[in-house]
């Protein structure tokens, strides 16, 4: 074979992309995330994220040192946290209750209504036994601080974020692949065949776009009932194909009358061959840009769905389920899980968006380099 003399679309695009420093930085970040994902999916790193290595809500080491509160006492400023809200209609009652609890004999002042705790003796025994055994038990070996803190169960937040990222990014990628594959297939059929096929598929498109995607996703989530990573991939993939469909269909309409397709017809290429071997490579850049747009959208959607409890099942961690836990932790002043999940997601999505923008510009054939 002779060497290629004129650069193709992809080579030109790569050349343009490489000239864009922002795009290359974004690409590096995205690749770093994908590498981490591969490593964690194959179990090489963070396989032990579920180990309860630290005390519950162990603060990040640097934050504890900065606060000067020492390692053992993560947060003692509960008084500051429990300040009055001027809008709370129960503020006066709460204050009265709190002052009562704050008395030296605070425990005794709690009314027991004449009920004795039937387990009091057992508990006292257990406590004594626990105390005698010292802190060498399961909790003894736990760390007081971690690089980025611990969650309620003492899991390392850093490892949890990596593991959660694996779920979120895999869902985003696979769902986007499904949506783009479906959209490309239907768009190719509609654009290439035209006529009845086109009319039918356009009808389907109109139906799916008449229902806002959020509502569509929630309706499917309501029906499917079972939670699972596969379910959420299917929900997002089966409802997200409309965007790629519209664009790919337009491309096929444009391309099917071009000379190279007529030439392929003349040498006896089959319809499938013309559609996917001849035309598709020439419209694949549209599919690629759509793919990266959808990945970003679906990662965000997965986070919201999992947060609401319609996404990943119990026991699977994702950025959405982390945010769900973090919501309640924030009121207690435990901000590290929220920060870790939010930051990881923001960095990935920013990089992915910048890359998408650059990719769109680089693949635009109208821009000459």
């Amino acid at each position, binding site marked *: 074979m002779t060497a290629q003399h004129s650069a193709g679309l992809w080579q030109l695009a790569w050349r343009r992309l490489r000239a864009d420093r922002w795009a290359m930085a974004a690409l590096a970040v995205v690749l770093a995330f994908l590498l981490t994902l591969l490593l964690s999916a194959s179990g090489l790193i963070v396989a032990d994220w579920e180990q309860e290595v630290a005390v519950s809500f162990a603060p990040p080491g640097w934050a504890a040192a900065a606060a000067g509160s020492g390692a053992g006492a993560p947060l003692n400023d509960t008084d500051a946290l429990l300040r009055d809200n*001027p*809008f709370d209609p129960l503020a006066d009652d709460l204050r009265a209750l709190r002052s009562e609890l704050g008395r030296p004999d605070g425990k005794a002042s709690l009314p027991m209504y004449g009920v004795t705790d039937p387990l009091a003796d057992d508990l006292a025994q257990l406590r004594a036994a626990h105390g005698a055994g010292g802190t060498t038990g399961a909790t003894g070996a736990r760390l007081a601080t971690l690089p980025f803190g611990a969650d309620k169960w003492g899991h390392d937040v850093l490892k949890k974020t990596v593991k959660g990222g694996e779920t979120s990014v895999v869902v985003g990628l696979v769902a986007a692949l499904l949506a783009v594959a479906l959209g490309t297939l239907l768009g190719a059929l509609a654009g290439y065949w035209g006529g009845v096929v086109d009319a039918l598929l356009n009808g389907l498109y109109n139906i799916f776009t008449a229902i806002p995607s959020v*509502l569509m996703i929630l309706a499917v989530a309501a029906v499917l*009932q079972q939670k699972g990573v596969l379910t959420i991939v299917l929900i997002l993939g089966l409802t997200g194909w409309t965007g790629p469909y519209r664009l790919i269909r337009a491309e096929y309409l444009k391309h099917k009358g071009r000379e190279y397709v007529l030439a392929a017809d003349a040498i006896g290429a089959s319809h499938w061959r013309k559609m996917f071997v001849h035309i598709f490579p020439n419209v694949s850049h549209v599919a690629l840009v759509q793919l990266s747009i959808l990945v970003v959208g679906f990662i965000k959607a997965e986070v919201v769905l999992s*947060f609401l409890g319609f996404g990943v099942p119990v026991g699977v961690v994702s950025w959405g389920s982390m945010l769900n836990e*973090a919501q309640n932790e*924030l009121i207690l002043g435990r901000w590290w899980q929220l920060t870790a999940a939010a930051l990881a997601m923001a960095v990935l999505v920013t990089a992915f968006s910048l890359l998408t923008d650059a990719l769109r510009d680089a693949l635009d054939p109208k821009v000459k380099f």
Partner: protein
Amino acid sequence: MLAYIVRRLAQMLPTMLGVVLLLFVLFNWVGGDPAYLLAGKMANAESIANIRRQLGVDQPYWVQLGIFLRQIATLDFGLSWATGEPVGQIIATRLGPSLTVLVPLTLLETALGIALALAIASVRGSLTDRLVMVACTVGMSVSILVYIIVFQYQLAYRFGLFPVQGWGEHLGENLLRYASLPILIGLAVSIAPTLRLYRSFVLDEVGQDYVRTARAKGLGEARVMWLHVLRNAAIPILTHVMASLPSLLIGAFLLERFFGIPGIGREVILAVERSDFPVIKAITVYVALATMLVNLLTDLLYQALDPRVRLS
């Protein structure tokens, strides 16, 4: 004009029928038998059969489809499975709170988006422009959940500037007291994508010949931007605002959920959690109808704004 509207309305029928069929397949076929869900944990065969008869799910599918079609035609979607309230009443009472948040939010977002887009477009290519665009990308990357959680915690819980959540009886109270923080958060979330989009609309116009002509005849920059450019950029902006209206009704569900606003979005979430199929079906039908009608209205407005557009 009238003929056009009639034809467009007629074209909606098959789409609406498709939406109905899709919902029917989803809820009556994929969704499984609701009787087991409704009868609860201590169900016996008799009560299950009873519920099945009441709901009509013991009938063949075509009879069930007939029931659903009659429900849509009469706009009577029966009773909620979870609360026993008439579905129509649920939707009617939830619409007000949703609109109390959405109308001010949409107005503020559009006004602010246009003002910022015109300001940014007039310094296009500068460092400010680039920085604002990067800031927008970063702002769009942070999950809406983080905005809500952090704003609610900081502004309402820590600083006590707003109520943490709640809803009152009167419109004024709701608007000024309870809806203000949700509106602020909605604005913070939506301004970045809006600004990016409107900036591209404005930039499409500033390169046009009429802008050069306006400058050549000595008009001030403010007049060129706010009068000449804005009037032309208003067409895609209007389309965007109109097109996003129906999905906004549902899209604010996170705000409504966090702030305890009894709106449509929160109702959808509740219905999904409780498998309250009639409520979801009814809301989906109404929203699909609204989407199609708004699309028609947008096309009509289009022609009113731009005489070059001919309705065919």
